[in-house]
């Protein structure tokens, strides 16, 4: 009886904690999403400044410290023109913009502060015990923030604009490879198996959906030869088992990154029941 009473009492206490955890605000923190695509030539200066503002409170995570709590200068409310001029004129400042003036000097100063924050630490904001020699700010071009050159330029544009300076940074260059990738990413998940097969261009190599391609094996009646798990593995890790008469390293090995879980499931379900073009009609 004692054991039972003790158990019931312990469970009751645990339930209180569990219920409390469940009535608090529920927030799931997901990994950062792919950045919005920037297509070269499509963004004007206003767009770049607006992008910089979004990065300031978004991916750049600048507002975590640059706020009214005193961890770092509150860039959103302070007079930036006055502050930047003061920093550049400070004897302690020995960085790349030393002796320069104007908007270009601010660009150099800001870029330097992004990638080498300890080059100049605003008095009172250094790491404790370093006498303002070391900044607590990380290099924003490295992980975990990992801003690209275009993104740093956008941030500089935002801060230059906010400080009343001319924007001197170039407009985003994008990059052919990035753009392609982003466009593909922006397509969103396929809604049917056929759409998924088209999206991942399966028929370019396999005889599937009217295609007569023969780079990869025929998929007629594949559901009779392989289980759903084996088909899934063949898509995710195509070199694990290579069909007789075909070469390894032909099929892309990164579908696990490209495909959504639902897309993979739809394709596998489709293939399990796929009898061939004639049979399906």
């Amino acid at each position: 009886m004692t054991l039972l009473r003790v158990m019931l009492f312990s469970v009751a206490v645990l339930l209180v904690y569990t219920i409390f955890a469940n009535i608090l605000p529920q927030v799931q923190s997901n990994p950062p999403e792919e950045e919005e695509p920037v297509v070269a030539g499509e963004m004007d200066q206003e767009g770049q400044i607006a992008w910089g503002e979004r990065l300031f409170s978004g991916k750049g995570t600048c507002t975590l410290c640059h706020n009214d709590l005193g961890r770092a200068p509150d860039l959103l409310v302070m007079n930036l023109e006055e502050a930047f001029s003061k920093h550049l004129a400070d004897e302690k400042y020995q960085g790349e913009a030393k002796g320069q003036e104007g908007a270009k000097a601010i660009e150099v100063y800001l870029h330097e502060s992004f990638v080498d924050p300890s080059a100049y630490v605003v008095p009172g904001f250094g790491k404790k015990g370093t006498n303002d020699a070391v900044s607590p700010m990380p290099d924003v071009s490295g992980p975990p923030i990992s801003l690209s050159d275009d993104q740093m330029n956008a941030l500089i544009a935002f801060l230059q604009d906010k400080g009343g300076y001319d924007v001197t940074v170039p407009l985003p260059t994008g990059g052919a490879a990035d753009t392609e990738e982003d466009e593909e990413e922006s397509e969103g998940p396929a809604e049917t198996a056929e759409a998924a097969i088209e999206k991942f261009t399966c028929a370019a190599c396999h005889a599937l959906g009217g295609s007569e391609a023969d780079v990869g094996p025929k998929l007629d009646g594949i559901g009779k030869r392989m289980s759903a798990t084996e088909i899934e593995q063949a898509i995710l890790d195509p070199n694990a088992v290579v069909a007789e008469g075909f070469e390894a390293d032909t099929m892309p090995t990164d579908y696990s990154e490209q495909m959504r879980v639902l897309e993979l499931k739809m394709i596998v379900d489709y293939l399990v029941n796929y009898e061939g073009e004639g049979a399906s009609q």
Partner: protein
Amino acid sequence: MTGFNRHYLFAGLVASLIFLLPELAMAADVAGEVVREALPAPKPTRADYMSVGGMSSRTLVWGLAQMHLFLAAFVLAVPFFVLCIEFTGAVTKDQRYDSMAHEFMKISMAAYSFTALVGGGLAIALFLLYPTLMGYMMKVFQGQTLIYALLFLLESVCLYIYFYSWQALRHGNRKWAHMSIGLLLNTVGLTLMFVANAWASFMMSPSGVDVTGAITGTVWEATRNPLWNPLNLHRFLANIAYGGAIVGAYAAYRFLSSKAADVRAHYDWMGYTSNIIAIIGFLPLPFAGYWLMAEIYAYSQQMGITAMGGVLAWLFIIQAVLIGTILLAANYYLWCGLGRTDRGKLYEPYVKYIAAVMVGGFLVWVTPHSLILTPQEVQMLGGTHHKLLGPLGIMPAKNIAVNLMLVFTFLSFQMFYRSNRIATVSWAAQGNAFVVALYVIGCLNIFAAGIYGYMTPTVYKVGASVPQVISTLSIIVFAGIIDYFMYRGSKRTVVNWGRMSTRSQYALFVLPVAFTWLMALMGYIRSSLRTHWHVYTVMKDNSPEAYIPTIGQAGNVITVITLAFMALILFIFWLSSLGATKQADPAGTEKAGASS
């Protein structure tokens, strides 16, 4: 060789081992200068993560890791305070201490094999479900993993020798040899924990690698990462508090199960001692936690803000509830304990004031700073923060609350300590006045530093908590020292062990339940600080579960793990009591056999 010299030789050997062991384990890359291929950390793809039977890999590893940690914390903590109790018994020549220490070890022994079993399961799960991560970790820590395995073997050897030689080495000089084995056991145990902590803290604050994760330093450099020592201290103290709470529950269970007055008296005393051990481990814990969090901020402000001001901030409200429960339960048990002595009545009138401080402190601690409000609610409040409750939600108010709760918990203990003692020293009045002054000045300082915190920016707010911590520790240390000398050789009155209510024993069950849930919650927070990284900033988690679950989801998982652990620990209690049960010989053959 004379017996005397042999003891010295033995002590020297043990001392050498103790001093050398951690050094050997930490610097496990025997040739520390070995140049390792500077390849970046691997970038696992979705295909590199295996799933077994549709189960969530992360939840499986989470459960096993947490269960292993619970058991390991318990089996590492018990030998530590057992050695302290054994030492007390040897110095005071009171055999009751020795018997109690032995009984504590008996419980720990039953838990030891489960620790190894779950640890093995965890290792298999990690290598099976996260092979890329484990491969990288093996490359970083190289031979240290083998040293870890050897240490585990040595820990087992020491533990079994320590436990089974208890009666053989119980008296005289042999007792000191026995305690030396205990010391060696604790050294090996602590080293084991430090090694495991190095791996966990490396994942949070990697060192000895460059920005791409390529190994550029030695194993020692990877071990001595920025968060290693704060984590070591935090876990060491938490283990003691946790171990004390678990054996306290065992004592309460035996107390409630028995009707015999002498048995109840024994387990009441055991429960009281366990509660004191838990409090001793617990009182400095917030300060160790403070140091850990300060080092997290120093390592990465972003990580620190994620914990205290970001998505995990609400968890600290749950933490407040849990710690509040622990303090209230521990205090309630101490207040009930005043009933064991006739002089306890003298102190009972003060209990209601202490209770008011504890409940008030608890309420301030759980007051959130910001709430998720609808526009109508914001309008009704006249802002995003409640005018009265808003100021109670920020750090200065919480620092005042937590420090006062700790100070008054110590006061509860001090009252029980005094309840069976009458000071006979000539300076008792002055000593007492000094203790009262210490409390008054300390509490005023805690208030003053807290109020100063309201008037300064965040950075100085954090700084203002240092004098508060110093005040709290000063009260505890100096009041403890004064009481020790003031009541040394004092006139003692009878303590009626066993004169405790059933309800008081349930307070001893609240402690391990709350501690277990709290440890799992803190583990969840610590792991979540890495966000979507296996190894922060150098190796991304690309698994489908690379997100921080909601508090509710985490709470449900934590409850299931805690329930599993509580079931296991009750089984261990039952095993321990079973071992002490002897069936009466119905035919009397045993007696006859013995006499023949």
